[in-house]
């Protein structure tokens, strides 16, 4: 794990390094099997398309939260923490998608000895369709406290 960014060096408007995730049938199968999520829309193509009118089988929405926690905890480093995450499920994530998970700093504030960074977040597919917009707050150490 990295040591993370310096709170003092960050500016509103900065974008963080994006995380790219491929959605495929194998990672959906691994996910639903390990958490025991047996909704047919996640694994049964005819059911999803013919009965539910979906474009394909769809990835569990929860996986978007995992992509964001990976994006933000990797960025925050060993001394930073992801405090809050909000997401809205807008468009389905389906096999074949290459998702870009990114974020931009929209605010900075000091609170209780931490540097809090507010971010707006996006998960967009290869056609630039917004799938899961979100927002987050990450706590970073302050230099003067060290």
């Amino acid at each position: 794990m990295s040591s993370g960014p310096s709170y003092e060096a960050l500016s509103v408007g900065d974008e963080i390094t994006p995380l790219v995730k491929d959605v495929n049938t194998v990672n959906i199968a691994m996910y639903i099997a390990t958490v025991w999520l047996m909704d047919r829309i996640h694994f049964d193509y005819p059911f999803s398309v013919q009965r539910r009118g979906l474009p394909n089988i769809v990835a569990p929405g929860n996986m978007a939260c995992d992509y964001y926690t990976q994006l933000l905890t990797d960025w925050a480093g060993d001394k930073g923490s992801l405090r809050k995450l909000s997401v809205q499920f807008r468009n389905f994530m389906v096999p074949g998608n290459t998702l870009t998970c990114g974020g931009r700093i929209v605010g900075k504030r000091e609170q209780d000895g931490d540097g809090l960074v507010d971010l707006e977040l996006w998960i967009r597919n290869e056609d630039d369709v917004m799938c899961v917009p979100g927002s987050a707050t990450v706590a970073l150490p302050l230099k003067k406290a060290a």
Partner: protein
Amino acid sequence: MTTLLDELGWKNHIGTPYAPHTGEPVTARDIRRYALAIDDRNPIFQSAEQARAGRYGALTAPLNYFSWAVGVPGAEKFTSDLGEDGLSSFVGVPEIPRAWDLGWMRGGEEIEFVRPVHEGDRVTVRGEVVDMKEKEGRLGPMIFVTSAFTYTNQDDELLVRHKVTMIATPRKD
């Protein structure tokens, strides 16, 4: 005008608590397989040795694992006891009359992370319905049901505060 929400009488259920549930102890295998599925290579999910030397001092689950540490209450059924769609229950769908006459989708979530889940933890969820509202969507009425949950560990330490908004719409099939 009578709305679908009025007709269902669901607003009386704001404040209705969910039955609390406690998961079985989280294993190293649960954590490892979850990390493999989400393709997150952080070593604190995989290696007890590296995790011991790290910030938490113990094998740690990916942050968003918290709800799965309890599991979906009622989901573990024999296959022949499941409904046709494979669903038995869902986090954020209260046990109220006619709930499953409608189709449910996840609308959004707000998660406040306080502590992560570690190997051996037994996680308990408690929660209640905090809001219901109805909007007219392009394809008919949509009911938004928001529930607030807290997740705690075996030492009664707070792990996560979680708000889930589920969207219910009349079934089309």
